[in-house]
């Protein structure tokens, strides 16, 4: 099973760095277990990164909703609204998955998203806020558990 952990974000842009920081933290811990990739790309470029993997974990910041900063939400792609992107640069994950399925591309069967609520995503060099930093260890722990669970399930299925 090929697993990718994809940390999305922009480390220059305040709380948007969170996905990158978590990926960096996981880099050594998941050595040999999963490919841990940091990326600031968006839209269709994410398709290039995800192709060829069986399972994927995506970490990103969110600015929406009423939750306090640092709140972690686990989602599957179906939980994201299926939106028509008004620009290709903002092609959403659901759209990317649809494209991959439609074209018969080798896209992960399992996708789990960790969304971390941010407080500021618009200040360059603003630094990351304390509540958001607190989410790091929780997400790291949760991702390691999740990969173990997935791999255990895979082992049971294949036996």
């Amino acid at each position, binding site marked *: 099973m090929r697993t990718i952990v994809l940390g*999305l*974000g*922009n*480390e*220059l*842009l305040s709380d*948007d760095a969170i996905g990158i920081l978590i990926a960096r933290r996981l880099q050594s811990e998941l050595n040999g277990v999963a490919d841990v990739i940091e*990326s*600031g*790309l*968006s*839209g*269709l*470029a*994410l*398709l*290039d990164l995800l192709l060829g993997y069986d399972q994927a974990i995506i970490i*990103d*910041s*969110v*600015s*929406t*909703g009423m939750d306090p900063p640092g709140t972690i*939400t*686990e*989602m*599957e792609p179906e*939980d*994201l*609204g299926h*939106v*028509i*992107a*008004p*620009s*290709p*640069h*903002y*092609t*959403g*994950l*659901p*759209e990317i998955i*649809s*494209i991959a399925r*439609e*074209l*018969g*591309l080798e896209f992960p069967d399992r996708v789990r*998203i960790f*969304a971390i609520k*941010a407080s500021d*995503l*618009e*200040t*360059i*060099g*603003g630094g990351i806020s304390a509540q958001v930093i607190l989410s790091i260890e929780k997400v790291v722990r949760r991702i390691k558990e999740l990969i173990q669970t997935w791999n255990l399930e895979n082992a049971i299925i294949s036996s």
Partner: protein
Amino acid sequence: MKQKITIDPITRLEGHGKIDIILDEQGNVEHAYFQVPELRGFEKFAEGRPAEDMPQITSRICGVCPTAHHMASTKALDDLYKVEPPVAAKKIRELIYSIFFVEDHALHFFFLGGPDFVVGPTAPKGQRNILGVLGKVGLEIGKEVIAVRRQLRELITLVGGKVIHPVFGLPGGISKGITEKDQERFIAASQKAVEFGRFCLKIFNDVVLKNKQYVDWILSDTYTHKTYYMGLVDQNNRVNFYDGHLRVVGPDGSEFTKFPSGDYLKHVAEHVEPWSYVKFCYLKDIGWKGFTEGESSGIYAVAPLARLNAADGMATPLAQEAYERFFDTLGGKPVHHTLANHWARLIELLYAAERMQELSNDPDIIDPNIRKIPDNTPKEGVGVVEAPRGTLIHHYQTNERGLITMANLIVATQNNAARIAMSVDKAARGVIQNGRVDDGILNLVEMAFRAYDPCHGCATHALPGQMPLIVRILGPDGSLVGEVKRG
């Protein structure tokens, strides 16, 4: 453990892609405002940093066109240190930049213009997306688009490092050259890119130009503005993305001015409106006359249509043919129809592919002399390129140790902001009557700004991963009458 949640995009929308439409007593449009976000803190962040870091920093502030920022920034460093890169370095930079253009323009056509034109502006909402486009042009073509794109991005990575974190441009040159073996890959890919460019134009011809209704949309007054146009041109006044002089033509198509890019402050000024974070660029010599068009208004446009209007032609044969056909079909120069940007973009794609082929075959690109070490004391530098979305200007000042004391960027969408605002306003007036707004009408308003491929950059890759759009309809007293949301 799993909970069902809906992401409400309101917070992000405060800054990203918001249109406020104000209605009068009769329910007709009094004014429509299009707003884009402010990116805070860049100047402060840049201050005190070594100028050499700017190509890395600026390419990271935006996940949409890092290559364009990297290139503009690198050129600003050449100018800062007054150093002329060797021939091989310049050609490799332009080669990489041409590849970026092919890839970026193709993405736009299939994913953005496609839903409007290949599927159709009035098609049901559920079909106006890339899947609808693939349904119409065929899955094999979809696979081809994905494959070509991937191959081009791999080539950029080969020389420039990761697309998002390019480690490529240095003052006076580049960090890595091209080997003879690499060159073969570039040549092979460029052949494919040219074929792909011709193919895209053929689709446009078959699907759009042969459909009278689409052509009527392109030509309709709702999507037309007579403004000035700006773009980089080479010494023969032909379109160039990487280098040259900035040329401005008037609404009648004649040259208004042409200047070295370093002089931009003498020609371009910025106007501030209380309702927008964006500073609206206008031509200094004409002045700001409000959101009006015509010769007496300083508003100008950039991006594909503007570049074709601002030049006398294309520097490669197939693109030149397409260029002539474009103006013949649309009634001569200049073309003022905003939606013609989609066609212009494909002509540029073909040019970028042909230029990629020329440069790939050029023996100079494998010359190992790729850097001239700068030895002048830095003070001030300006770098300009054409980003896919229009003219992009980087301007830095430093102290004698090369630490940034001032950094200013004028991005494409800012150059275009005034005309985009007018386009949205005009489209809203054209399609909203008696307070009736639905999804189809919203799409017709969106089409007005989508043609420019505006980039609000920077923070927008966060989940849910797209720029949602909200249109708020306000009554004459400012009360909220209705709201239509995407996202």
